[in-house]
């Protein structure tokens, strides 16, 4: 079983307590009325899905219930780091900007 560090509980906890919640650092546009369908599609559906380090939202749903962000390597499935929601995206080797 994977152990995932929850930045709010400040310890490694079993993966069963967590739930994946999609790509992190997506900014919801403030001018949706003015967006074209293509732009809206890009915001709502199009994800990067790179090979290597990805930034994801996770939720400690059966623990403290908080959302947080994690950097995970899709090749090794190793969690590089986790950090609280709202904190800036860390600069990591191998990660796309």
């Amino acid at each position, binding site marked *: 079983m994977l152990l995932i560090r929850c930045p709010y509980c400040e310890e490694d906890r079993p993966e069963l307590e967590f739930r994946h919640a999609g790509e992190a650092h997506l900014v919801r546009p403030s001018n949706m009325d003015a967006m074209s369908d293509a732009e809206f599609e890009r915001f709502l559906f199009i994800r990067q899905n790179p090979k290597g380090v990805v930034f994801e939202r996770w939720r400690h749903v059966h623990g*403290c*219930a908080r959302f947080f962000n994690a950097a995970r390597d899709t090749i090794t499935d190793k969690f590089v780091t986790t950090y609280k929601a709202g904190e800036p995206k860390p600069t990591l080797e191998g990660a796309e900007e």
Partner: protein
Amino acid sequence: MAEPIGTLRRPALSDKRAARDTVSIKAADPCLRVALRAPRESVAAVSTALGVALPSRPKMSGSDGARSALWLGPDEWLVLDQAGNEMLPALAKVDAFHSAVDVSHRNVGIIVSGRGAADVINAGCPQDLSLTAFHVGACSRTLLGKIEIVLWRIAEDEFRIECWRSFADYADSLLRVAARDVSSS
């Protein structure tokens, strides 16, 4: 190569006897419960009204007499009153922003105690329940098999499990099967 597992003959009533030897599983007495949310600025005022300091560190619990506050998240607690004293009237007078909901009848408490208590809970709970990781007084929302529970270590070999009422039968059955395995190993 893995050894094949044979079937074991299990005498009638063996479950009950085994459970009595090493682990006791029993329903906790009814108690009052409040699901509490409060931002950091409100914690002091809410603590004063409740008469118990809300713990601010993960997995910590705090008690004063029969009233206990269990840390569930950075701004979330489960408050228990085992003496049956209502908490909402006092909280209603607090001006500081918070949310308190009486969930006394939503939950059922199960007390698991005895030498093998941690092993029995670990049959369905993936957390590290060693005394160094889960000290006496530690509490956490976690899983027991397929259900979510709040686990609270009240003594070295005594735990309180809080689960939702409709899951209580499942929790109790799972613990009893685990107790049979733990006591036969």
